[in-house]
């Protein structure tokens, strides 16, 4: 249709016809409204009713515009003497800064953990360089010195291509989780490593150091949500150095 219009333009009497059609519309609409029946009528009447309501509103608004009403004289709140009038900026600035600080605190509070800061661990401490090759010249392999979690169904990559070696002796599956309010400790299986504060690389490797957030299976505790569903996993933060102790002690993050 558009293409035709572009190519050939419109009829000569297009404007005339349009004008006449729009003029006729009011009459046509009223004639239709009186004659149609059935469910078509119902639809039409509903539509017309909505239109009428809208029209009435605009008419009323126009009427109000012409009438000059006396102002309520609503006096603004917060009266200030002359010497303080232009200084509102100062008060606002203080309010803004405190608001920003509060918001920052709130955001931080959402992720407040028992151990907010942990000691940084150097790479030499974390990895041991493994020399490979016929003459032990290549040293691109690393062995993890800390406790790790590998998960069920873990299969090693082809040994030749494996860059990080996680020794079986240092793999741990259970954690001693202390409930902070109940003050009791349970031994719960670890489901996965959520975040290692040292580096995302360690998170992906599954290294367990002090301060790591792990997900543990708490179905044993029997906690239930407000909806009635059983809670079966929660986060816990590791509080000891597992490579020294041989076990993982952690605190449940409720």
């Amino acid at each position, binding site marked *: 249709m558009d293409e035709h219009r572009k190519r050939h333009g419109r009829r000569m009497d297009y404007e005339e016809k349009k004008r006449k059609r729009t003029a006729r519309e009011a009459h046509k609409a009223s004639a239709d409204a009186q004659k149609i029946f059935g469910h078509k009528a119902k639809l039409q009447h509903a539509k017309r009713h909505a239109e009428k309501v809208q029209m009435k509103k605009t008419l009323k608004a126009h009427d109000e515009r012409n009438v000059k009403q006396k*102002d309520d004289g609503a006096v603004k709140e917060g*009266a200030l*003497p002359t010497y*303080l009038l232009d200084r509102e900026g100062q008060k606002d600035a203080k309010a803004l800064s405190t608001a920003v600080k509060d918001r920052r605190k709130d955001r931080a509070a959402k992720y407040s953990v028992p151990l907010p800061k942990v000691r940084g661990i150097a790479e030499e401490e974390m990895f041991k360089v493994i020399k490979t090759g016929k003459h032990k010249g290549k040293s691109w392999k690393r062995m993890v010195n800390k406790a790790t979690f590998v998960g069920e169904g873990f299969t090693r990559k082809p040994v030749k291509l494996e860059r990080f070696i996680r020794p079986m002796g240092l793999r741990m599956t259970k954690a001693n989780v202390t409930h902070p309010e109940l003050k009791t400790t349970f031994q719960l299986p670890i489901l996965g490593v959520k975040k290692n504060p040292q580096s995302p690389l360690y998170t992906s490797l599954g290294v367990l150091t002090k301060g790591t957030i792990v997900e543990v299976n708490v179905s044993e505790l029997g906690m239930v949500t407000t909806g009635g569903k059983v809670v079966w996993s929660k986060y816990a933060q590791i509080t000891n150095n597992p490579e020294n102790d041989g076990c993982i002690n952690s605190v449940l993050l409720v």
Partner: protein
Amino acid sequence: MATLLPPPKRQKSNYAKSLEKPKEPEPEIAIPSIVVQFKSSEDGSNLGPAINLPADTGRDALQMLVNKLRGETEDPLPYAFHLLPKLPSTSTTPQSSRVQINNSIQLDALKVSGTTFSPEDVFELWCEPQAVFRVRSVGRCSATLTGHSSPILCCAHSPTGKYAATGSGDATARIWDMDTETPKWTLTGHKGWVLCVEWDSREKILATGGHDGQVRLWTPATGQPFGQPLLGHTKWITSLSFEPLHLMSSKSTSPRLATASKDGTVRIWNTSTRTLDFVLTGHAASVNVVRWGGENVIYTGSSDRTVKVWSGVDGKLIRTLNEHAHWVNTMALSTDFILRTGPYDHTGKLPKDDEEAKSIALARYKHLTSTHPEALITGSDDHTLFLWPDQASSSFSSTATPKKPLARLTGHQKQVNHVAFSPDGRMIASAGFDNAVKIWEGKTGKFIASLRGHVAAVYRVAWSADSRMLVSASKDTTLKLWNLKTYKIRIDLPGHTDEVYCVDFVADKVVSGGRDKSVKM
């Protein structure tokens, strides 16, 4: 073995006490005899020859001596004495530059360590005559008047001291009777907060300026509006000032009014016909304060960092004073009090008619300006104040050019909010946001003392009519009455529950209003 407490000491019996030798009286320090030269602090001249006096001469005795020397034994004037210490060249701590003599030279100067006096110098005793009348000290809150439904923004006492007017954020102004401590009239009509209120010096008209830019005139006797509001300003009114009584021409029945507004203009209105006389334009930013000086000169201070001096006759700009580095917030004239109270003074005499009122007002004005020409002090957001010499054209013979300030008063650590001259023009008090009220000398601008005690910004300061007491209102909801002899707090006036925005000192009453919507007397 557990340690036991020693048994209590045995008290001495009366007999044993009487056997003790009576304590010897403290050895009498020989009171040195010093040479005192009385100097008048107005012009520095010597009042009589140097006199040999014992150092413990009391203040009353000194006063009597000065009166005798001046030959005024019939009506003796009370005097205040102070010494100016010679500062040692290595002094690093700024001390107050004067040592007040309250008891005697012996006690205040010689015995106090840290001062550099010795009985061998000639003591130059500066004498300042004080007001003959004494204002009774304010002690307690005698009335708390409610009625306003919004914070009270400004208050002013009438020239006679019978009434006080307060303007508030609820768009009304109220007149209170000070003698009976009751409300008198409520003046409604403003469409916005009532920001400033001023009485004329004959107590016939009250002018109020509002946040809506209107200025309304009222008759305080009946509480009715005095004609239509004066429209013309496009932004809110920041300050009002009436023409001094002695400058009114004999034709006009009521003084002219100068109104300053945030829109940068000052309009001079004829209050009897309620028409505009002329407009003072020229400021580039909000005009914060306007004052009508006694020499028919209008001073305006503005946020464009300048102070402009205009002629009250035709509205022409005389001079621009350009020294401030930030907004000019506040301004005071040394003749402020005289101009505001007009013909009414402490004797309570009422002038019979307008002519007599004018002549009394003129006499009072001349009496004050004979010794100190009218000086202007401006305080600003740049933490300093400037003291300007007399700007009227008649003083062109002085050596200092009127455009240069006499002194720059530094010391405040934050913006200066309010400055006020004492009624006798001798001292200046400035209130700042750094919680301090500072007192300076009125003639030279030298620093005298800093009054500390407020814990939040000091908003307003008011002098008593005899220049002996100072009251300050602050954001920390208290008013403090200061002892100007020791520069410490005399009385604390608590009681307001929220910031105190305005204060005024009438005969022996202090009127204060604040954010807690109550007026306290």
